Every structure is written in C-alpha cells, then in structure tokens.
C-alpha cells in the first residue's frame, strides 16, 4: 500500500506547469537525443506535438525486455570451461583467444544494431547505463557467451527493478569471474566483489568501512560457478555460515542478505539517482531534487520506470541550462550520427571499432568503475579522433576525396600492434558508410537542418551561402556537435 502511494506521489510531483503544452521541435529533439541515440527528422516531428507527459509516457509505454534482433548463433554454444582452456597447447590457446576476440566484435555489432534500429532506444540506453554501472569486461571474462548472457540480464531489468537486477548481477557468471567471487571460499574470502558492490553498485564511497567489506566478503563465499557449464552454483561447503556484522546489522548472512542490507540504505538510492541524473539531465545534479527522487524511488521499491518518468518530466530536464550540457559519449557520437543522418550500413564493425578507438568499447570498460564520462570523454587525442571520423563520414564521394582517404590508409605492416590494425580496419570500413545528402535533405526543410543536428546554436559562424552537404560538414565539425 505504501509502495502504491509512493508511486502515486512520484507521478503527482510532476504535475507542475508547462505540462500541458506541446514540447515543440527543439523539445522533441532534446528528449529523443537524451533518451536514445540521435533522432531522425520524422521522429522529432512526431514527438513535437505531444506534451511532456504524453511524450514521456509514449517513450515508457513499450520498453521490451528482450532484444528485437536475432543474436549471433554462437551464443547458444556452451562456453569453454577454464580447466579445458588450460589444457590446450599454446597454438590452440592462441586460436581460442582469436575466436573470443572475433566473437566479441560480432556481439558488439549485434548490440550496436539494436541501438540503431530498436523501436525503444531508451531500453538500449538503459542497458548501456547498467552495463556501465555493473561494469564487467570481456578482457577478463574471456567468454562472449557469458557477456551475452549478462547483456540479456541487463536488458531484462533495464527499466524493471533495480533490486532484482542487483541480486541477479551478483549471481551472474560474468560478474562472478570479473570480480573474482567464483573462487571465494570461507578459508580466505576474496574481497573484490564485496568492495565494489558497496563502493560502486550501491551505497557509494564513504558509507562503509574496511571491516564491512571483510564481513560482507564472508557472506558471499560459496557463490560460484559450475566448472563445466559455467552456470551459477551455490557451494555450501565453501560458504562461511558464521555470524557477520555488516553496516551495523548482525546475523548469519549470505550474499542475498547483504544485498538486502545495502538496498535498505538510503545512500543507495541517492547514489544511483545521482548517476542517472548525470546520464540524462546534466553533469551537475541538484542535491535536493536527487534526494526527493531517491526517497520516492526507495519507497517504490526501486522500480525504474516511475523514477525515469519523474526525472524526464522534471523542470530540470527541460530547462534551458540542460540543453547541450552533456558531452556525447563515443557511442552517442557514432550511433547517433548514423541514426540522425540515416546512414544504414551493411556492417556495423567499423562503427564498433570507431567507438572503441574514441574511448568506449562496450563489453570492455576500462575497469569496474566503468567509463568516467562527461568532460573526460574529450581530450586533444579523442577530440581530434572525433573530428576526423566526422570529416571522413561527410567528405562526400567525389573522386578527389576518395583518393585522399585511400592515401591515408597505411599498408599493413609486420608485427603491427592491434590498435593500429583496428584503426586501419575502421578507416577502410568507414569508406563504405555513405551519407546520401540528396535523399536525406528531401525529408526536411533547410531551416530544420541546424536545429536537428545541433543541441545548441553553432559556435563557429556559418560562411555566407553554405549549403548542401557542405552545411552538414560545417555543423558536424562545430564544437556544439560534441554536445547533446
């Protein structure tokens, strides 16, 4: 009953002013770019006539819990158990690693396709958000099948329930490997998962002590994997059944008990709402608003949808200061550009490699904290990389430009490092990504081009008489294009 009331309050708290008016072209652009990956002219126009509530409700009405695209066939193959891998000779090990890398790329292509074509880009954005929150890397997990299963789990609860998600992630095989819990036993508990679950997944830094980590680690002992199937298994003999004290609570806790203790802490809601704010609203969360949303969220038992609804209809989300205030992530830039300019290539591999080279390789975050995001996406190396990519995409197809591209692609060299190899593959692949100005420009009036492409007016003045694909080149080269 209390939960229902809280949900109701969450909904009512949004009934502010300006809720009834249409959000207009710029508003629709803002909403769709923040909750998806770019937006087409048709989509923007479609949403422009709705009110805030109507638009947000429409976004939240149908958020599938499974991907629309068919996953790669290999996901049904049983993953290779570690003991079998260890038995391979050096050649076979190398071949297996090559296969893991290749399948990892195929898996990312599948996910990028989903981001680009899904009827609910918000589902994919939330899946990516949780992937960054419960960051797990294939570099250590080394099993594309397990990374796929985790991705399926993240999507299932992307707009579902955070408590359910947390409990499931803690038993997720990729996570058990990534944070070393799979081998943790009572004689000497491994503290890695216990530490990160507090620091990064729930209450956040400063709300627990070293002692809490040690005690919680004891509770997670025994949560492990079947050595053949790599499915979760609870090894009773490895579990420490003794009394533990975690955040002032005492009992013969197991892992689920500790997660429930963490979910009961108010800091958990505050921590995650703050992160969501930075993802969707602005880099500088308003502490009072965050507290308000977090309190209601906890009362609503961590259902994600009502929280997202409250955040997306808030005045803060729609404020002038929030427009163009967030730096696009590499995935935003790459997938969003393709979406906005309706570039639909046969293969997404070059797009995956481009995002990776710009600093965001999904399924391989730099560490368990995920990508820091925000301004950290941009330094001199990545900014130049972004501009080069855009220049290449919109250079057009005149013969002169093509020769220039060809001249820039270095020939393969012996012993070349993987990054150089991937860069070459990306550069070559990007040549197949054709932007069709003639077709694209038919769908929108010239006055809409800048409004669709940029979240704020261009920084650099447009030279007199700039038009056609030249206009697009100009807008995408502008610093404002790096923002959403």
């Amino acid at each position: 009953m209390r939960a229902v009331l809280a949900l109701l309050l969450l909904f009512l708290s949004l009934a502010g002013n300006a809720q009834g008016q249409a959000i207009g072209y710029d508003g629709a652009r803002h909403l769709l770019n923040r909750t998806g990956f770019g937006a087409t002219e048709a989509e923007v126009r479609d949403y422009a006539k709705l009110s805030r509530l109507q638009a947000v409700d429409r976004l939240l009405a149908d958020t599938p819990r499974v991907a629309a695209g068919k996953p790669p066939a290999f996901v049904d193959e049983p993953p290779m158990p570690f003991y079998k891998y260890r038995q391979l000779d050096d050649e076979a090990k190398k071949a297996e690693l090559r296969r893991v890398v290749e399948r990892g790329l195929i898996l990312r292509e599948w996910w990028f396709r989903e981001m680009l074509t899904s009827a609910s880009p918000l589902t994919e954005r939330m899946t990516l958000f949780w992937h960054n929150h419960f960051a797990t890397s294939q570099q250590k997990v080394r099993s594309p099948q397990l990374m796929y299963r985790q991705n399926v789990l993240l999507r299932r609860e992307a707009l579902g329930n955070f408590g359910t998600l947390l409990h499931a992630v803690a038993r997720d095989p990729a996570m058990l490997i990534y944070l070393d819990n799979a081998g943790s036993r009572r004689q000497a508990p491994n503290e890695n998962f216990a530490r990160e679950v507090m620091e990064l997944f729930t209450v956040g830094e400063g709300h627990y002590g070293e002692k809490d980590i040690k005690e919680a680690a004891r509770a997670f002992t025994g949560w492990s994997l079947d050595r053949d199937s790599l499915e979760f298994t609870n090894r009773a003999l490895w579990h420490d059944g003794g009394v533990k004290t975690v955040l002032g609570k005492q009992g013969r806790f197991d892992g689920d008990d500790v997660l429930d203790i963490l979910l009961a802490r108010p800091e958990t809601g505050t921590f995650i709402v703050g992160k969501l704010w930075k993802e969707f609203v602005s880099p500088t969360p308003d502490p009072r608003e965050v507290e308000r949303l977090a309190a209601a969220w906890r009362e609503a038992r961590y259902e994600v949808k009502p929280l997202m609804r409250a955040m997306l209809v808030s005045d803060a989300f729609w404020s002038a200061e929030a427009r163009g205030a967030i730096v696009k992530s590499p995935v935003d830039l790459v997938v969003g550009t393709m979406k906005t300019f309706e570039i639909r290539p046969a293969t997404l591999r070059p797009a995956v490699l481009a995002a990776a080279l710009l600093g965001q390789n999904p399924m391989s975050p730099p560490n368990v904290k995920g990508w820091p995001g925000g301004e950290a996406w941009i330094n001199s190396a990545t900014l130049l990389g972004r501009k080069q990519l855009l220049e290449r995409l919109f250079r057009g197809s005149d013969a002169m430009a093509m020769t220039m591209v060809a001249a820039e692609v270095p020939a393969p060299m012996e012993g070349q490092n993987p990054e150089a190899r991937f860069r070459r593959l990306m550069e070559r692949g990007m040549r197949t990504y054709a932007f069709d100005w003639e077709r694209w420009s038919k769908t929108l009036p010239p006055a809409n081009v800048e409004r669709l492409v940029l979240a704020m007016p261009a920084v650099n003045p447009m030279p007199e008489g700039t038009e056609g694909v030249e206009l697009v080149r100009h807008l995408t080269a502008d610093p404002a294009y790096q923002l959403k």
Partner: protein
Amino acid sequence: MKRRDFLRLAAAVPLAGSLGGVAFAAPAGGSRRLLILVELKGGNDGLNTVIPYADPQYARLRPRIAIDRDRVLKLDDQLGLHPSLEKLMPLWSARELAIVQGVGYPDPNLSHFRSIEIWDTASKSEEYLEDGWLARAFAASPSPAAYAADGVVVGAADMGPLQGGTRAIALTSPEQFLRNARLARDAGVARNPALAHILRVEREIIASAEKLNAGHVFQTDFPQGAFGNAVKTAAQLAANPAGIAVIRVTLGGFDTHANQQGVHANLLRQLGEGLAALREALIEIDRWKTTTIATYSEFGRRPKENQSGGTDHGTANVHLVMGGAVKGGLHGAAPNLERIDGNGNLAHAVDFRGYYATLLERWWGIDSRGPLKGRFATLDVLNA
C-alpha cells in the same frame, strides 16, 4: 632478526627560502629538464617487485606467490628485483636506479578510483581537490612559452596529474596528432562548462601543434606492444625541439586479485623492457642526463596473499626513479613485515607528497609548498 633501516629521510635537506622557476627559466643549452611519469595502473605489488627475499616473513606470508630466492635479482643481501626486471639491472649497476621504499600516506584509501584521485591531485586522504598536482605546479611556475606543452599524456583516456592544466595535451602518436590538428579551430567564448572544456581543448591542440615535430628516427629498438609504443612516443616527444616539461605513460593491469604470478611477471617484463629501451633512446638523443623517470601507482598490495593466488588492495609501496642525474641506491624505508596493521597492511615511511616535492624542487627547482599545499620532506635521490 637483523633488519635494515634505510631512513635516509632524516638526511633530507629542508628547503631554504623560496625557489623560482630555476630550471624552467633557463631552457637554453640543453638544460631543459624532462620528467617522465610512469603510472602502474591497478596497484602494483611492490613486495614482488622489490623483494625482501631474506626476510622469512616474506615467504611465510606468500606461500604460493613468493618469488624463489634463487630467481631474485639480488640488489644486496636483503633485497632483490623480480626476475622479469632483468633489463633494469644495468641501471642499478650504473647507479642510475633509485628505489624508494615505503611510499604512501596517512589513512590510506583502498578504492582504486578514490586512491588514484588522491595521488593525482596530491590531496589528503579526506580532501577533495579538482586539479592535478602538476596542473597546480604549472599554474604557479609556468614552463617557458616556447615549450610545446607543459605536459603530454600518452595513450591514456584521463589527464591524471595534469587534469585542469591549461597547456596539457593527450595523444597516441605525434604523427597522427599532427595530421589531425588541422581540424581544430580556436573559437571564442563558452556558453556552458562542457562547451568551455571542448573549446579549451581545441586551443591546446592549436598551440601545441605549432611546436610539435614528429620527425626523429631512432636507432633504438622499442619492444612490441602498447607499452613499447608508449615509450617510443615518449622518446619522440623528448626529441622534440620545443620543450615539454612532463610526459606521462601508463602500464595497466596490475589489479592482480587472482592467479597473480604469470600476469605480474608479464607486466614487469613489459615495464623493464620498455624502460630500458627508453633509456637507450634518451642516451641516443643525449637527453638521459636531463631526464628523470619516476613510477607511481594508486596503492600497493597486501603483504599476505589471498586464497585465489593473488593479492588484495594494500597501502605502502615501492617506486622506481631512473635517470642520468639520479642517485642510485635504496631510499625510504624497507617495509616491516612484522608490523602489519589490523587490516593486514604495511605502514608507510615516505609521504607520496614528499616524493612529488622531490621532483618539483630538486628536479625543477620550483617551490612545492603551494602546489602540494604544505611542506613535505624531499628525498635525496637526485644529483641536481
């Protein structure tokens, strides 16, 4: 048990008065002093890097991952280097390698992220600072205008100790940077913080690109792999005609919670081979005497191994300082394995801000008290 005490800290010379930008002020005549920082990301296991092989506690704490006494590269009758660091032994013999033991800070934070933030900003454990320690140092004592940049970050996503600085750039290779720099444009005022950041980066690119030159061809062979490429880029930057005050390279993967031995050996091999090649390259361009290389890491690891054949997050750690002007030998204080605290961690003997103060004052001759927000005893590791 016989235990060494290398408290040369006591001999640290206190600073007399304030120093100006001495080294920076006189860039002519090849005296441009370069600092190359090497970040060991993930928390390097110092006890298996510089190994107290003669201490019976060492083998007792690490039944599975201790390095065999016979395989250790002996530095003296107590300490030895990990066998994978073989390439650093010539530096040790030449007295160009200083080993600083027991580096840490009070109330250590064992989170990777918070801890590296503390190291990058040189803050107290409970203090949150925005700017990196080098950014603050350069704000107080700018490098000469003729320099290509205060600092260059090679191949990393974050600016680390240069965060918040005005003349710092990041790049993977100078050639590629120069090829793309034409895409940057200097465009006026910002309307929001995110845009202000982007515009600042554009200006830095333009300013640095004018003075960068990627041309030097080395005789030195650089090792394969990402770290080999990073040190090669560092060498190219060191050869740049317009100066650069600091270059940062990174070697990642030191978060060895499980099955540490093979992984750590491989990392240290990359480190040793990379640094040896870097030395050779710097000698080739006659910059070894004017370069100091210093490692850092967010924390060390626990002395006691864990059940997974790895080590968990710890505290005090050992760091390496190399260069033609370095006073080789042992500095700081050897870890006392008999005195492990309630969390299983070592006590520190050298404050990491003293380590930084050494680089600021003794290498560059700039006052460290402002940038480091206090006075920290320097170490006698440089013949500067």
